[in-house]
């Protein structure tokens, strides 16, 4: 058996072993998701957030009409950071 033939054999084995392994690995992952994760999802559901239309409205009106203190502080923080970033640095 010459050298090239042997290399092809090795490459072929690698291809076979590799593709089998990749498929087996990701298939086990599918099983993991369908069993473990699915069970966990049922056992520990996300807390239900009631999208209170009241607070939503409020936050809309906040933006439209007057701005809440948190937003003001965020804006002033942004201004501060903006200035800090554009100061001299050399």
């Amino acid at each position, binding site marked *: 058996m010459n050298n*090239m033939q042997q*290399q*092809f054999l*090795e*490459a*072929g084995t*690698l*291809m076979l*072993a*590799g*593709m089998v*392994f*990749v*498929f087996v*690995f*990701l*298939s*086990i*992952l*599918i099983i*993991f*998701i*369908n069993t*473990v*994760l699915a069970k*966990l*999802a049922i*056992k*520990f*559901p*996300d807390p239900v957030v009631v999208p209170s239309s009241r607070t939503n409205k409020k936050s809309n009106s906040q933006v439209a009409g007057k701005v809440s203190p948190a937003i003001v502080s965020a804006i002033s923080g942004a201004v501060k950071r903006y200035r800090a970033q554009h100061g001299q640095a050399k």
Partner: protein
Amino acid sequence: MDSLYTLWLSTGLANFELGQVIMMVVGCGLLYLAIARNFEPLLLLPMGFGAILTNIPVAGFSEAGGLLHYIYYAGIDTGIFPLIIFMGVGAMTDFSALIGNPKTLLLGAAAQFGIFATLFGAIALNYVPGIEFTLKDASAIAIIGGADGPTAIFLASKLAPELLGAIAVAAYSYMALVPIIQPPIMRALTTDKERKIEMAQLRPVTKIEKIIFPLGVLLMTIFFLPSATPLVGMFCLGNLMRESGVVDRLSSTAQNELINITTIFLGLGVGSKLSSEAFLNVETLGILGLGAVAFSIGTASGVLMAKLMNKFSKVPINPLIGAAGVSAVPMAARVANKVGLEANPHNFLLMHAMGPNVAGVLGSAVAAGILLALVGT
């Protein structure tokens, strides 16, 4: 006069070699692709710049004591930079689409055939006179088919450092070309009816699933493929920081400043391997040629796998999302969405394609681990 002569002797003009000039043109070409064509600019811009710097005569950027020498040996030879990038990518990745439709993992698996077919192709190139790829070389080249930059750089730095430059150039160039390479293959392998398939809405995924998922992936990698744990581990660390919700400041830094800093130096360091000796040879042509083939085969494998799954699955799968299995996040998913919209203007495949897309990242990392385990010793 003496002084002027010394000055002249120290100029680039007096010391240029042809190979260096050509490599600088190559570097400028990468800059052009990055800036004018928007080809993966985050990596190709510093890489092209690094290619120019490393080929400057006299300056010695990549010799002992030079800037690029430090960067390469501290960050790339050690594997640290690609791993930090991978952590950042993990912190950017949302696995909801994958967890919501786990079958798409098979599409990500199928697309890895691009890698192993390329390995075969690289060995076949040994028939060409002047090319002599070892199995290590062939494996490093093959990973281009994984369409994942950091994985390719990590594996090449371990298996074939002298080919790193060419491999990185090929990987990132073809990743940028995904919107051009993939659509014809996708159209050729699917019927109009298949492309019109609408997919069911994804089920909502809970927080606990997203937290346990990276740990489960890591655990499986530890059990079955420890050689892939550097890549997969750092990826899962980033994803866990993201999903746990308790270390938002770390997650944010990993996704932004840390990955940006590392990207600059990674690009420069990879560029430093673009010397004329390492790049200007027939092997590079072979690598560039194989890269195009690799992407095409990966794309085709993903699409064909989706068609095969449709024969067995009750829930229909649009075969276009199989093409997203090559990774190249999120470009390949966008391509799937775009080709889908051409066939059916009401069919938004983007979210569905994100499943195979991130599955492709895992699949490539697993494939890299296999290659490391089997030929890396």
